[in-house]
């Protein structure tokens, strides 16, 4: 046999296994750490995929586009078009009504669960006859009526009351601000509130999921043109279209987060293995002494890693799958699970092999002689003072001082431990910053409720546009000074702000559509700050009666035009008489101005006055109240009592908006809380593991200390200070870097989500710090039990 060859894989396996069996506590905590790290990775990565899958599934049950005001005959033809996968007729937005203070609206659509999910019956059947309806159980509970098939219900329908028979129930499981009342086709065609409203076609485009965004858009508008649907009546599902884009920012964010999670888990696994191997340098030296080659040592350590993985990897894959399922059950996919498990498992094995191999290689390079004299805790020699060392120099060897001295031992190990703890802390602080910075009320206030809690407006359906929009309603003058004064007299109402807008029909480049105009005053800031082509200063716009177009790409898309600065646009408007004029396009901006409430075309107040004269151009009363939390409910009741007299006015409230937003907010928060809890658990268990491992590796040292007279409380105190001295930097890093990272994330999100307002998560940070400090206290009590002071001779 050659001296350089070995045939001893079997013995290496057995040595590795017995090493693990011999140090049970250490093995247990190594297993625990690897399992936790991989579970963390598996859970988060799978959760991110589930989020995407849930979105895709949701989009898979939605229409791709809505074609409004499509005649029935055209719908039948379009349904047979090979470009159309599915077409469902729909009628809604026919007005809101109230019963016992609960809002509802009549809606017609076929009961369908697949491809385009409309509504799902929990009980009964879909409406067929004229007076048959399906309602939600929550609606019946709110109006105080029993949920029974055959229950008769009298509801306001337009100007009359009609009696309906409930033939079925849905069970949405949550309260809504406006409940749909599903009616039969017959009622949709002939019922008073619905007969004058056109049908909308809900359409899924064949093969859309495999199209690029631009190709999809082209097909959509081609179909619209083929079946006589105006571009302004085409409503594309924006989320679906975004999912077709190649550079999906959501996907990129998911990829980045996955990489961060992998890095966090990798660092933790590396740390635990590094500690494990460097604590056995002496043992490894002894093995070399009796003839184990460096190659065999590396193999032995890798085999230990392999054995650990055979237990921890399957456990982590199962646990991770279970946790991810509970975080987002609607996105669960067995295929995704298998793929993620394969990647995570492979990563786990690879990471452990790397983590074990590197320190093992370093240890194997140490000669047996060096290893026999070495402990991993030697630390650097103190520097000699000039003039020689004074033998009687004294320092008090309190537990704190001994802990400080202990910091000199194996700095790399301590740095790794600190980084490992801090990484989890930083992730926790980012999640906490996100949660703390999210104001639910602010979320619901984006848009219509930015400055007010109630909005009284004309009951105008923009999906069924009239040539001059709500001008006819404006001419009634219901949103006038009389009503305004009455509203101001309501107790605790702070202000009633009138929002103005005018409407007309515009013609441009062969297209024609109903358009609203935003009233631009001199002291507006947003319009004059946005980047735009052309001249948009107030004086110029007044002089030339020019218009300023914002969100131009969107307007261009829905109307099939391309706005050019300097072009003339024809406007037809009505103030009791019909008028026509041309308006210069003075400026065009691709960006949006959120404060213009979706008008997208602005004209100055002077121009508006010139054209509409002294006509009442009010479209909204925005009402704000003092102390909304305290007086909001009563104020709402008072407003509704006043507006009841005007059937053409509707009241929308912040309360209803928050109700509509509540379920999505709740779900997202639960997910973030779940992930945060897991991150904290991960950090705490990681710390426990590191500390227990640290104690377990020093049993002999503690036995010796007790043998020479160190009391248990002194050893505990020393351990506590040692832990604190490496936990405190980790906590500091967590609060500073984690806080900074949290600020960065919130600042980045604020660009797209204005309701985010950064607040430092002080309570969460303190809780984390307290946990990180308490754990060493507990471990220093528990970990010392079982120290046998007579075992000082154990190596």
């Amino acid at each position, binding site marked *: 046999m050659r001296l350089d060859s070995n045939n001893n894989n079997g013995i290496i396996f057995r040595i590795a296994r017995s090493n693990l069996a011999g140090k049970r506590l250490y093995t247990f905590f190594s297993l625990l750490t690897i399992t936790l790290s991989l579970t963390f990775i598996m859970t988060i990565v799978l959760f991110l995929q589930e989020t995407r899958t849930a979105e895709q599934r949701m989009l898979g049950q939605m229409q791709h586009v809505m074609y409004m005001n499509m005649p029935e005959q055209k719908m039948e033809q379009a349904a047979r078009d090979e470009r159309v996968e599915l077409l469902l007729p729909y009628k809604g937005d026919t007005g809101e009504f109230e019963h016992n203070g609960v809002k509802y609206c009549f809606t017609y659509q076929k009961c369908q669960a697949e491809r385009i999910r409309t509504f799902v019956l929990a009980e009964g059947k879909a409406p067929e006859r004229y007076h048959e309806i399906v309602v939600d159980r929550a609606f019946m509970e709110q109006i105080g009526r029993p949920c029974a098939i055959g229950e008769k219900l009298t509801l306001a329908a337009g100007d009359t009351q009609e009696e309906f028979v409930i033939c079925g129930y849905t069970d949405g499981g949550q309260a809504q601000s406006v409940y749909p009342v599903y009616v039969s086709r017959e009622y949709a065609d002939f019922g008073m509130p619905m007969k004058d409203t056109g049908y909308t076609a809900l359409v899924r485009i064949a093969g859309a999921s495999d199209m690029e965004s631009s190709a999809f858009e082209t097909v959509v508008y081609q179909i619209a043109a083929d079946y006589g649907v105006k571009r302004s009546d085409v409503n594309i599902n924006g989320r679906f279209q975004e999912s077709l884009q190649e550079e999906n920012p959501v996907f990129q964010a998911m990829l980045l987060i996955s990489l961060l999670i992998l890095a966090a888990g990798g660092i933790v696994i590396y740390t635990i293995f590094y500690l494990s191997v460097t604590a056995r340098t002496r043992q490894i030296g002894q093995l070399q002494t009796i003839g184990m080659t460096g190659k065999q040592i590396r193999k032995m350590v890798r085999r230990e890693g392999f054995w650990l993985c055979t237990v921890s990897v399957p456990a982590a894959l199962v646990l991770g799958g279970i946790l991810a399922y509970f975080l987002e059950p609607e996105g669960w996919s067995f295929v995704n699970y298998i793929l993620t498990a394969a990647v995570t498992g492979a990563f786990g094995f690879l990471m452990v092999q790397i983590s074990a191999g590197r320190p093992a290689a370093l240890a194997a390079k140490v000669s047996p002689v060096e290893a026999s004299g070495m*402990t991993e805790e*030697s630390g650097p020699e*103190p520097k000699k003072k000039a003039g020689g060392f004074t033998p009687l120099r004294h320092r008090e060897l309190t537990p704190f001082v001994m802990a400080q001295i202990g910091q000199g031992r194996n700095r790399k190990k301590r740095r790794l431990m600190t980084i490992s703890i801090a990484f989890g802390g930083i992730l926790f602080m980012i999640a906490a910053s996100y949660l703390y910075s999210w104001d639910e009320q602010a979320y619901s206030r984006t848009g219509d409720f930015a400055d007010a809690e109630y909005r009284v407006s004309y009951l105008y359906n923009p999906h069924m546009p009239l040539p001059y929009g709500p001008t006819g309603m404006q001419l009634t003058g219901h949103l006038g000074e009389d009503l305004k004064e009455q509203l101001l007299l309501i107790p605790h109402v702070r202000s009633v702000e009138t929002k103005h807008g005018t409407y007309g029909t515009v013609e441009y480049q062969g297209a024609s559509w109903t358009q609203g105009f935003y009233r631009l005053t001199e002291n507006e800031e947003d319009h004059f700050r946005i980047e735009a082509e052309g001249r948009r200063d107030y004086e110029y716009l007044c002089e030339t009666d020019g218009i300023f177009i914002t969100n131009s790409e969107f307007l261009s898309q829905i109307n099939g035009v391309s706005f050019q600065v300097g072009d003339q646009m024809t406007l037809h408007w009505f103030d009791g008489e019909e008028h026509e004029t041309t308006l210069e396009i003075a400026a065009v901006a691709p960006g949006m101005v959120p404060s213009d409430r979706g008008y997208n075309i602005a004209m100055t107040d002077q121009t508006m006055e010139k054209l509409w004269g002294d006509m009442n151009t009010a479209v909204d009363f925005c009402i704000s109240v003092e102390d909304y939390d305290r007086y909001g409910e009563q104020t709402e009741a008072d407003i509704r009592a006043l507006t009841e007299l005007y059937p053409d006015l509707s009241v929308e409230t912040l309360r209803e908006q928050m109700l509509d937003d509540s379920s999505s907010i709740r779900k997202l928060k639960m997910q973030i809380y779940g992930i945060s809890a897991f991150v904290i658990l991960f950090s705490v268990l990681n710390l426990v593991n590191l500390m227990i491992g640290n104690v377990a590796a020093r049993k002999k040292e503690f036995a010796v200390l*007790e*043998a020479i*007279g160190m*009391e*248990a409380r002194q050893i505990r105190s020393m351990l506590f200070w040692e832990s604190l001295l490496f936990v405190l930097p980790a906590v500091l890093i967590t609060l500073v870097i984690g806080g900074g990272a949290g600020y960065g994330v919130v600042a980045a999100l604020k660009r797209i989500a204005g309701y985010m307002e950064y607040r430092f998560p002080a309570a969460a940070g303190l809780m984390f710090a307290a946990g990180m400090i308490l754990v060493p206290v507990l471990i220093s009590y528990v970990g010392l039990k079982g120290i046998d*002071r007579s075992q000082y*001779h154990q190596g």
Partner: protein
Amino acid sequence: MDILQTNNLTKYYGTEPFMVKAIDGITLAIEQGSFTAIVGTSGSGKSTLLHMLGGLDTPTGGTVTVDGQELSEMERNELTIFRRRKIGFVFQNYNLIPNLTVYDNIVLPVELDGRRADSQYLQEIVKALGLENKLDRKPGKLSGGQQQRTAIARALITKPAIILADEPTGNLDSRTSREVIGLLQATGKKFHQTIVMITHNDEIAQVADRAIRIEDGRIVESR
């Protein structure tokens, strides 16, 4: 005057019929200021006996009295403090604290007691053990003999009632062993210490004033 006494000391492990009698009824007395060697082969029970003399292990039966204090009456913490003040240990593996300098290792038991070492006494010990130039070094940078001398200094610093040495030359070569034994003997005389040393080496045991042989947990010879 006897500084250490045991009375029918026993230590049994397990239950019948598999009971192991590590110590099976040992009664002895150690005179103050003497140097006693406890000799026995591997497995004779000498280390177990030493553990019980030092309060590191609890006997199954019998008593151990050190400087008039019966160890069985003390709780663990009391024993630790007692050990710190009254008993000095010298281990086979030296068992110095690796991160502390030689100086810190020597004064550690006194510091644990919240006191400061007597500087004159400390200087005497350091000089007697030839450690003057080693005080700023860490144990990892010392030879075996130097480490053992440090351990002896640590055992002496609290002026204990008794020093227990568990195979103090077990890890040393013969020349260094003789040197260490000589130092143990010399410092014991100089500082009026009582020394009890465990060894399996008859030759080393001969330097002691008295040798007690143990076999199968019992004293078989005492000269």
